[in-house]
């Protein structure tokens, strides 16, 4: 039962939370949106997405609610909680610092 490493997991969490800033979305929508925004680079598989969503819900960063999808089917919509928004801001800043640092290291000849 290989689980995603912390880096990967943390990154996915970050992407999900960021995606939910705009509006509540269902799992499929989140996956699509990440794919589109990243210009097809990041493909989130179902196997990684849903456990991550459930974990985030357990932690109280997102909340789930059943609703109607755009094609009139019952779907589970996730929305960001206040705690989640706070956590996202922290993580975003952290990520930016980290990626800047990595860039620096890589750019050094």
């Amino acid at each position, binding site marked *: 039962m290989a*689980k995603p490493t912390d880096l990967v997991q943390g990154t996915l969490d970050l992407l999900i939370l960021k995606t939910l800033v705009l509006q509540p979305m*269902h*799992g*499929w929508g989140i*996956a699509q949106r990440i794919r589109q925004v990243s210009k097809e680079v990041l493909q989130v*598989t*179902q*196997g990684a997405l*849903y*456990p*991550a969503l*459930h*974990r985030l*819900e*357990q*932690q*109280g*960063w997102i*909340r789930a609610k059943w609703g109607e*999808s755009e094609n009139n*089917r*019952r*779907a*589970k919509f996730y929305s960001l*909680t206040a*705690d989640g928004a706070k956590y996202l801001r922290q993580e975003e800043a952290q990520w930016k610092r980290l990626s800047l640092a990595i860039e620096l290291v890589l750019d050094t000849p």
Partner: protein
Amino acid sequence: MRWYYKLPLRLRSIFHKNQAELDLSEELQFHLQNQIEEYVAQGMNRKEARHAAFRSLGGIEQAKEECRDARKVNVIDNFLQDLHFGLRILRRSPGFSILAILCLTLGIGANAAVFSWIEGILFRPYPAVTHQERLVAVGGASRGEPRGNPLSWPDFQDLQRSCTLCETLLVSKITGTTLSIGDRAERTTGSIVSANYFDAIGVHPILGRGFLPGEDTGQSAHPVAVISYQLWKGRFQGDPQIVGKTQRLNGVVHTIVGVAPKGFYGTFVGWGMNFWVPASMEDVFESGGYKLEDRGARWIESYARLKPGVSLQQAQQEVGAISGRLEAGYPTTNRGRGIKLWPLWQTPFNNAGTLLPTLEIMMAVVAFVLLIACANVGNLLLVRSCARRHEMSVRLAVGAGRARLWKQLLTEGLVLSLFGATGGLLLAYWCRHLLVLLFPARGGVQMHLPGELDWRVLALSAGVCLLTTVLLGVVPAMQTSKIDLAHSLKMEAAGVVGGGGRAWVRSGLVLVQVSLSFILLVGAGLLMQSLLKIRTASPGFTTRGVQYTAIDLVSAGYDRVRAQTFQDALLERVKALPGVESAAFARMTPLTYVSSSEAPIAVDGYEPPPDESPGVEYNEVGPDYFVTMGIPLVTGREFSRADDEKAAPVAVVNETMASRYWKGQSPLGRRLQMKGRSLQVVGVAKDSKYSSVRENPQPFFFVPLRQNSLRGSGLHIRTPLAPDVMGAAIAREVRALDSNLAPYEVITMQEQLDRSTSAQMVAVKLVGVLGGLALLLAAIGLYGVMSYAVSQSTRELGLRMALGAGASNLLRLVMSRGLVLTGGGVVLGAAVALALTRLLGNLLYKVSPRDPVAFGSALALMMIVSLAGCFLPAWRATRTDPSRALRD
């Protein structure tokens, strides 16, 4: 992160598991549908799209499992599985389960019962009283005397007026009266209280009222009483019109003004109170006359409730300052006297103090029993874990983590200890009032020692249960960590007696059992010896051949003259009975709860040091008292019929008093001032014990009954006849004089001495019984270990036999192995016992905590028991059939 997000989600995962599962399926299904539609939109046909979608998504079930993990459902699920499995395993081996659960029930039950006694007797003794957690005992303390003593009424009132840290102060002094005059005289206990008593403790009478302010002033001015619920139901048949009716108490007609609520037994540890009278009625119940205005007369026992947040130390400082002012203001009566506060469980003037050491020891003993029970169950589990080695290996082989195995074994331990705890709490519930059975009734009044099973006791028991679980789970779990997968698939190598890596845990457990039971045996031995010493030590008077009874004339309404006539007539009749050598009345009988009076005295020619105000206890006794009791006189004479109200007042002092106040000169003919009277010393008696066998020699004096209160109701008789014969004869004589009167039960002074040392007796009984139990458990443990060792080493034994070892060799081999274990346990136990027995301190009487006899006899007993435990396995070893053992 917030719990209010998480909790409903968790609960949903557990209790609405199906709904959560459905949601999960639907959610994933929705995703799948969308994926299919996307593929269709890209131009695939529906069937292809479906396959492609499944492929791209990976296993649906796998995703589900990971979602469950994310929801932490598995933690709970696994636990339920383990629980289920644990229960199944218990059902499969009922013999083991019953034995283990019985051991634990006993261990946990004993602990819970003792906790409930400690809670009900020491920490929360008065459940009906509001805020008893802030209640403290208040008493006097003279310098250099750790024992608390009573306060005087004026001192109490000053304290009440000036204590700012106390919310309220109240008086509650135990007293007694005789209620049913008829076939049998019955003693009942009551309290003399301050008028604020019922309001102060927050107990409201269910009928009528409590006492009014001012009812505790004036000499015998307010003959009113509140009676207990039990008395109301029993003696007055629950009469709803009881308020306003009258009842004679100690010869004075009292009006019943109220009935206390059910479940309220007063504020005295040890006895339930049946009536309450205001302090103004003090001189009806107490000896020594009217004392409300006498600062030197100390008789009050009181309590204070501290204000919220005030610590005992803070309150003690303020009270100390107040008593300092009293000392300065009233040097003649208060010099060298302080006022002290005690927490309720150390209350000096009720049975809390006497029971404290016994209960402490009980607590240690039951903890030992629990440990021994755990060791025994641990041993049983070990035997089983050996049998389950294969199961564990398979579990490990198919991929269970060690942590998962530990969890499973701990859950099994939890199942066992939960059963044990349930049984234990039931046991404790039945035993909560049992403590009282160990104490004999005194003076016909049964003690009142209720246990209290409240949340604190439950919490402690739960803690014990948890500890047990860990102890039980750890032993087999340790074993699993040593399982070597590759090795365990092969045949197990045959062991040798006592050898083998695994055996040490079991041997270690037996070692612990042996040492713990050895400690208990030593403790029991020491307590037994001191009990024997206490009961055989001479208290300074004859214990066998002197009997004692009482006739309560005051309660029957006799006045002074009638009482005197009656006593004279009865004494004549009793002395004329065949077998009676002599007889005498006295106010107080030694070693009974009836306390002797204390009076400030002045001795001509004795200048008290500045911090001492001499007060000496005394007794009022009739003619022939010393002869009857067998207290020898050193010089002078004892009282005779001539020492009556018309004669000059006289006194007999004891040796300690003579040497303290007359410093080596003969006190004969010297004078002693007491309560404004001058007494001439006519005799010196040898020291004897007055209120307790354990007291140190203290100054004491005697005055003639007739020159004093005449409250002498104790009849002392010197006779070789049996108490019941004497009892019948005395009852006949009493009835002949007054058909409405009856004497109390007739007992020997030895019986009285035994009753007064019942706390020691209880300790001996308990430690003895539990020590025996521990011994039995240890023997079973030893037997188990040796049997197992023998059964595991038949090969070795067979080989030895084949090589020519005789039966006696093998017997010796196995026995010596067992004795080495016992020896190790005894050495360990002895080392711990040497450190622990000092803690028995107060309960030991003239016995060293390192007494060789106690240690020796414990050793002998232990050895005999362990020999018995080892013999059967050893004998079985000699029956090994070498040809079969070697072939198998």
